[in-house]
Each structure stands twice: as structure tokens, then as C-alpha cells.
């Protein structure tokens, strides 16, 4: 159990928003109050705060705790030192996201909003220029989107992007697993164990069911809104990546046709929660909305604008406005692409991967070491149970 106290380094958590860690006197009120603490093996969320205070980076890298917190903010509300534990957990997630990412871009974007905005603008400009120079014939008599932007070319671009982003995301996820499972030790775990836990990953990816236990808000309204957002997001991803040939057509189907209905559902499922979240962050009433980093805002705004421009393409197309359709289509992609490129592997979006992965890894860890030590082992056991 002997741990070398890392006297030479204090974790630079403040750059990620954890500005009040030093105020914590380790009273443990946050742990007592947290509804998720008990089935996270105890010590949650104080353990993360203590690891940060004592500069024990490797222990923090190994920890899954930050991903098990859904930020209800009860701890921050009740903290007698106003040390803001909930925001510290958020900062820890940002910190870990930055550390998992081997390109260093995630860290750069979290520390500098300017860098993130510049990156988004650059990618957006690149997409715009791509369309300006390579678009197909512009038909003005009627809306012919597939002439202006042939679906197979767009699909090709989609797949290239998906491949590149998956590469970054998966390598980062692999790094996370490497640290969590103890480096080379992960190679000694039977592949069967990894396979057996796969359903857990998808279960939590699609439901976020642990969240329902989080917080004192009645009925888990926030969880429901978030679930709606995820469903809209995943719908859109499916329509764009897998079903684009079916989704992007010049033929106008009746309103009730699944192609349109599904699209409208996805749009609403993104627009409503993002608008709601933005309003809440603006109002700053609940603890979770008190502290909004630039990364939080950029994520929400980009997502909202993507859905908004997407539905406008549909409206212009259905109403037979060719130029407006082409223009808004270019704008739509100039927003959607940078959002995906910047946010998916390097930004806040990545939590859609890391959260279920954390629960998955907890399960693997528990299965691999049934009699493991107190801290993470127990947490793993409890979480996966």
C-alpha cells in the first residue's frame, strides 16, 4: 500500500477547471452525500480529490471514478469548504481526456478555448473550400442536391472521416484501458473476459442507466433529456454514416415516410435538449450549470447548429428552393464536420466512449482479479454488479 507521495508535482488540474481542490479539507461530506458513492467502492468522490491534492498522477490515471460521476452537484451544494467537488470531478474528466489523447490536441483545446475555436473554424473553412472548388453542377430549376453534392462522394468523405476519427478515438480508448488495467497486465487477461463484458459496454452506451441513481432530482428528468439527446445523436450518425444513400435523396417522400420521420425525430431529439441545456447553463440555477467552461458551450452550440442547419436543408429542399438548399447544405457540413473532427476524439464528445468504456473496464478488472485490492477492484465489482 505504500505510495510515494509525489512531492515534485502538483497536478495541473486548475487548467482544466479544478480551481478549488486546495480548499478541500477531506471531511468526506461529498462522499456521504453522493448517491453513487456506496456502489462505487467508497471514497468517491473524495478519493479523486485526494489523489489530485497529493499529486499522484498514476493513481488518478488508473482511476475510473471520474467517469462514474454524472454531476448531480449535490456534493458541491453541501461542501462546507466550497471546494466544489463536482466541478473537480468534471475537471478530472477533462484532465483524463487530455491524458488519454496521445496527440496532445485534447489538452490544448481544454486549456485554450481560442485554439479550439480556431481549429473548428479551420476545418469548417476547409470543408467550405472543398465544396466551393469541387461541387457538382448547380441545377436551379429544381432542387437536385445529389447533383450538387453526389451522395456517393459525400458518403466517401463520411467514411474517411469516420475511419480517421475512430482511429484517434480507439487509440485513446486503448491508452485508457492500458492505464486502468495496469499496463502490461492487461495483456495477461484472457480475451474471453474482454468479450464477455462487451454487452456491458453497449448496455451503458445506450441507456446510461447508472445516471438514474445520481442526484436528488425527482424522476431523473436530466437523465431522460440526455438519453433523448443520445438517441438523436446516434440516429443521426446511423442515417449519415450507414443509411446516407437512403437518407439524402432528391425525391420528396410523403411526410409519414420513415426517412423523413426518423430525420425529424433525430432533429428534435438534438434540438430540444441542447437548447434546454444552453438555457440552463445561461441561467446558472443548478450546481451542474454554475460552471460552464468554453468547451461545454462550444459542444452544445455546435451540436445545436448542426441539427438546426440540417433541418433547414430539409425545409428548403421540400419547399423547392434550390440555391438556399445548396448553400445551407454547405454550411451544415461546415459545422457538422468540424464538430465531429474536433469534438469526437479531442473534445467533450469523447465521453460517449469513455463513460461506457469505464464501466466495461471495471467489469473486466473485476473479472480478472476477483480478490483484488480495496480501491479500484472493489469499485469495479460494485459498478459492474
Amino acid at each position, binding site marked *: 500500500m505504500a505510495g510515494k*507521495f509525489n*512531492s515534485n508535482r502538483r497536478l495541473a488540474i486548475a487548467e482544466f477547471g479544478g480551481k478549488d481542490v486546495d480548499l*478541500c*479539507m*477531506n471531511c468526506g461530506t461529498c462522499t456521504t452525500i453522493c448517491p453513487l458513492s456506496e456502489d462505487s467502492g467508497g471514497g468517491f468522490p473524495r478519493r479523486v480529490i485526494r489523489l489530485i*491534492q*497529493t*499529486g499522484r498522477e498514476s493513481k488518478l490515471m488508473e482511476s475510473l471514478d471520474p467517469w462514474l460521476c454524472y454531476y448531480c452537484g449535490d456534493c458541491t451544494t453541501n461542501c462546507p469548504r466550497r471546494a466544489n467537488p463536482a466541478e473537480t470531478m468534471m475537471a478530472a474528466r477533462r484532465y483524463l481526456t487530455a491524458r488519454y489523447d496521445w496527440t496532445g490536441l485534447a489538452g490544448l483545446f481544454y486549456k485554450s478555448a481560442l485554439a479550439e475555436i480556431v481549429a473548428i473554424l479551420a476545418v469548417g473553412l476547409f470543408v467550405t473550400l472543398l465544396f466551393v472548388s469541387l461541387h457538382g453542377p448547380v441545377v436551379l430549376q429544381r432542387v437536385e442536391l445529389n447533383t450538387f453534392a453526389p451522395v456517393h462522394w459525400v458518403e466517401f468523405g463520411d467514411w474517411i472521416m469516420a475511419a480517421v476519427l475512430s482511429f484517434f478515438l480507439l487509440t485513446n480508448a486503448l491508452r485508457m484501458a492500458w492505464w486502468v488495467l495496469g499496463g502490461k497486465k492487461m495483456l495477461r487477461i484472457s480475451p474471453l473476459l474482454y468479450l464477455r463484458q462487451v454487452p456491458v459496454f453497449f448496455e451503458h452506451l445506450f441507456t446510461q442507466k447508472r445516471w438514474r441513481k445520481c442526484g436528488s432530482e425527482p424522476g431523473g428528468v436530466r437523465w431522460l433529456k440526455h438519453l433523448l439527446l443520445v438517441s438523436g445523436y446516434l440516429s443521426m450518425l446511423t442515417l449519415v454514416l450507414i443509411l446516407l444513400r437512403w437518407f439524402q435523396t432528391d425525391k420528396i417522400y410523403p411526410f409519414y415516410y420513415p426517412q423523413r420521420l426518423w430525420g425529424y425525430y433525430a432533429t428534435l431529439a438534438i434540438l430540444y435538449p441542447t437548447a434546454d441545456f444552453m438555457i440552463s447553463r445561461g441561467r446558472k440555477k443548478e450546481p451542474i450549470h454554475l460552471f460552464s467552461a468554453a468547451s461545454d458551450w462550444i459542444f452544445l452550440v455546435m451540436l445545436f447548429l448542426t441539427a438546426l442547419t440540417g433541418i433547414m436543408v430539409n425545409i428548403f429542399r421540400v419547399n423547392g428552393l434550390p440555391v438556399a438548399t445548396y448553400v445551407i447544405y454547405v454550411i451544415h457540413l461546415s459545422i457538422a464536420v468540424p464538430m465531429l473532427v474536433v469534438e469526437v476524439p479531442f473534445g467533450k464528445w469523447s465521453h460517449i466512449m469513455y463513460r461506457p468504456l469505464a464501466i466495461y473496464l471495471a467489469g473486466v478488472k473485476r473479472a480478472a482479479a476477483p480478490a483484488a485490492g480495496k480501491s479500484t477492484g472493489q469499485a469495479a465489482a460494485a459498478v459492474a454488479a
Partner: protein
Amino acid sequence: MDTSPEKISDSSDSGKLRVGVYICRCGGNISDVVNTEHVAGICRRIPGVAVSKVHTFLCSDPGQQTISDDIRRENLDRVVVASCSPFLHELTFRGAVQRGKMNQYLYEHVNIREQCSWAHKHDPHGATAKAIALISAAVGKVSRSVPLEKIRLPNHRRALVVGGGPAGMKAAADLAACGIPVLLLERSDRLGGKLHTLNRLFPTADAAVELAHKLASQVMSHPLVEILLKSQVVKVSGFIGNFEVAIRGDFGPSGRTTDVRTTVGVMVMATGYRPYVPADGEFMYRRHPAVVTTVDFNDLLTRRDCGEGTLMFDGRPIRSIAFIHCVGSRQVDGVHTPGPDGRLHAYGSRVCCTTVLHQALQVRRRFPGTRVYDLHQDIRTYGRGHEEYYTDAARAGVVFFRYHSAEPPRVTGTNGAKSPLRVSVKDYLSWGEEMNMEVDMVVLAVGMTPGPCETIVEQLKLPRGEDGFLQEIHPKLRPVEISVNGVLLAGTAQAPMNIQETLAAAGAAAVKARAMLSKEQVELNPYVAEVDTRLCEGSGACLAQCDYAGALTMTQTRRDGHAVRMALVNPGLCVGCGACVAVCPTRAINLNGWRLDQYDAMVDGLVRDIAPSAVN
């Protein structure tokens, strides 16, 4: 009863006595259980009782008036009140008796509330019978009371303040301001005491030296304060108003060490504290030069050569410091070994936590490159403005660790590693994980131990608490008085205190001393031992039992033409404990107000057969 002194034999003749017995209902507190009317009726049958009355509230003005009036009207010469605890109203009824022009020591108080109605509320008959018995005993005792007078002794209106630190200077200045001449004694060659070892004071950040100068100028400029430096008390005896003190010091034109004798009315003990000195090897103290106490470290921070930007010690830069709290404090039997003084320091010194945080904060602010670790059991920043030091230190990046008293941190050498010392601690903020840190310096937070005052303590038999500090009579009701009347406590001679508390205590001691010196004569309770010169055979048994130096002495005198050895009481020094009374083979020594024949009468009274079995 043949041993009772002749002078009271007349009054002890119950036939001629007129005792008034007053029974209080206490608004039902007593009468709801004790049948007070019945008690009054029975008490009339006790020989000598002339009046027996019941009143709803005897302590009220009409109640007291009844007593004063009855003394005159009924020609009473003894009074017994049966009511609540004497702690509450004995003095009240003594006053009523005095207003009736009767000697106040011819009064007896019986507690039939706490001892009867409250204690036996489920047994009214028993409570009533007990009340009768207690009153009967009191009547017996009071029948043999004699008029007493308070002991009056000359009062030397001059104060001796022992110790020239902040407490002593403050007490001296306050006393002088009331017009009391003060003799201020200091063993070192300058006033100021521990203020000279401190730097900036929390929580106000005043310079300690400035405070010392301010206080010193107050006493030095006052014509009523006589200051004796490099001097100390070598002999002291006497009692309130009359302390004989021998002082040894370098005074007079010769500058040689000489003794002077003087008499003072009160003594203020401002003898201060000594910082705890860790034992050799305790946390590597004295084994490694970079292990120092908070006292040493404070000294280092005041030195000019401690560095600019980087803290320097012993020619080496100090880039990391571990502060260890509670060194020589809050020690636990079985874990710690007693120090050189043979004591286990179980107490905490109150100021050390804030001292550490204060120093840690100074380091972080003056030398931002130096990392600071704080190893504590608890952080007890109890005073106003103290907690801010904890918050500020936390904000300034001090890292805190918590250890349990049974598992204190361990300090070892690193043998040539980059930093010379390693501190290991089982950190209970990290779920008991063992934490190791390599540091350039270890600072041990030491508490306070009692200051030097052995001579006076031994000669005046001043009581010490378990912790070795001088013990007050009552921590709340009489916080600056000690059981030796006329001796007062100021500051850390009594207990660990910060400077605010020290000066407040010194001010309180000064006021109390001033009150003691306000009268021409010292008035003492008459409850002291008295020797019957006809009976004393000079066995000396009493002397062997007496704990109070000078209270009893043996003298040679003449009786009936023969030279005899006899005990003599000094009423100024006798505290009336009664130890001498118990051992006298001839019952020659007695306590005034509590004589043996009065006890005999009480016993007779308790078993007096006056209460018929029919108690309704």
C-alpha cells in the same frame, strides 16, 4: 460534653436559648414532598426552639424581614433556616440575621430541598422525617455556636509581580494604573519575555518586539512600578496582605548579587511557559541539523540571512519542508514515553496549530519555490481569525496529511539523496496509505510546558494541575485565583494561552489583586483552627498533619507556672481543613464554627426522639 470550652457553657444551656427555626416551602419545591407544616409543628418540641415558622419563599424580602423582625420581637439568639442549598442562600440569611442585630455566625443552614424533597420525592414520609432530623441536628449545632468575628489582618498595599513577560508587564501596568505600588521581578536582563523569541504575531501580524516595547514603556514610565531585572524570589512565606519575600538579584550600586527582603500584600504569578524540547532522537531532533522546532524555525524566519526568494539554512537551499504537529503534545500513555520532566504531555497547547499554519504560510508567500507539507492529527485553529490561516495555507498550496497519535510520522535520513530527510506517514486522509516524502527540512511543532516557578510553588504550596501548570480554584467562577489566598495567576503560568488570552488573564489578575488590596485590613473567614490552651499537651501530632507551611507552629509558653510546649495557629495561613483536629489526642484543637462539641450536638440532634411515628 465536658470538653466544651467554658466560655460557651452558658449559651449551651438549652434552657436559656431562644432558637428560631424557619422552614421554606420553596414555592412547592419542598412542600410538595415534605410536610412543612408538620415539620414546623414537631420542631417546636425541640428544646430551646422558641419560634418555628413556615414560609413560601423565605429568600424573598418579606421572608427575610420575618427573620430580622422575629430576632428583635421574639428575642431570638440563634436562627436555623431549612431551605435550599447553602451555596444558594446561606449568605442571604446571614445578611437577614445581621440586619436583626445578631452575630451572623449564630446561624445554621439546613438543606431540605436537594437533600430531602428532591432526593426523596417518591417517599414523602421519609423526606419529612429526614428534614426533621436534619433540623434537629442543626438546632443542636447552633445551640453550641459562639459569636465569631471575621479575622482581620493588616493589608500591605503593594503587589509583587513575578515575571516580566507580557503577562507580568500587563498586570503591573494595570495595577499601577489603579494606584497600587508594584514590584516587577524579571530573571533575565530585559523585559519582554517570550515576545523576544516571536516574530509576527497572529492573527494581527503585529511585530512581537513592538508589543514588548509598548508594554515595557508602560511599566518603565510609571512611578509606581519598581522593576528588578536579573532577580528572582528565593524565599517566600506569609499569607494574603502579608507575604514576606526574599529576592536575590544584581541590584544596588555595587552590582553584586544581593538578597533583599520585602513585604507585599498580593503576588501575581506571571512565570510563563517553556517550549517543549524534544528528546534526543525524537523525530531525529539533534541527530540531524535540519530537524528543528517551531521556535528555531521562527528564529530562522526572522534572520536576515535566511535568503531572498529561496529559503536558506545551513548554507543549503530549502526547497521542501515537512511540519509535524503535536510534538510533545497530546501524548498517549503506552505510545509515548514521558519526557525529561517525567510527565506525559497529554494536553494540547492551543497555539501550536496556528503557529504551524502561520509559519507555513510565511514560507509559501516569501519562498514560493519551497513546498510545504503539514502532518497533523487535527487542525485546531480555535481562536477568532485563526481559521483563516488554515484556509489561506490550503489556498497557498500547503499539502496536508493526517496521522493517528498511535502511528506518528517517522523521520529518517536518506544517505546522500537529493534531499537529506525522508518523512513517512500513514496518511488517514488517503485511507491509511503510507506516504513517503523527501524533504530538506523538518519542523517540529512544540507546545508549552510550565515555566520556572518551582521555588514559589514549593514554599507556598501552590497546587499544580495534572499537566504541571498552576491550577486555578475554579476554571470558570474563579479563573485567575489559586487556592492560596492572595496569589493570582496571569497568563501561561496557568495554562497554554495565546497572547490575547495571556493579556486578558493578566488584566483579570490585576483587577482581582486590586480588589484584594482595596481594604486597610484583610478580612478572612473565621473558620480556622484554634488551640485550647488549657488542654494542649504539645504532642505535635497536629503539626505533622498540617499541609500549610506556617499555619501551625509549636511554641514554648508557661501555663500555671510551668513551661509547656504548645501548638499555635497562624489564622492568616490556616485554611480550616481540620486535619489537625482529627489527630489531637486531647481534643485541644478545634475549628471555629465546626467544633467537636458541635458535632457531638449534631449527632445528639439527629437521634433525638421528637418525631412521633404518626406523620400525616
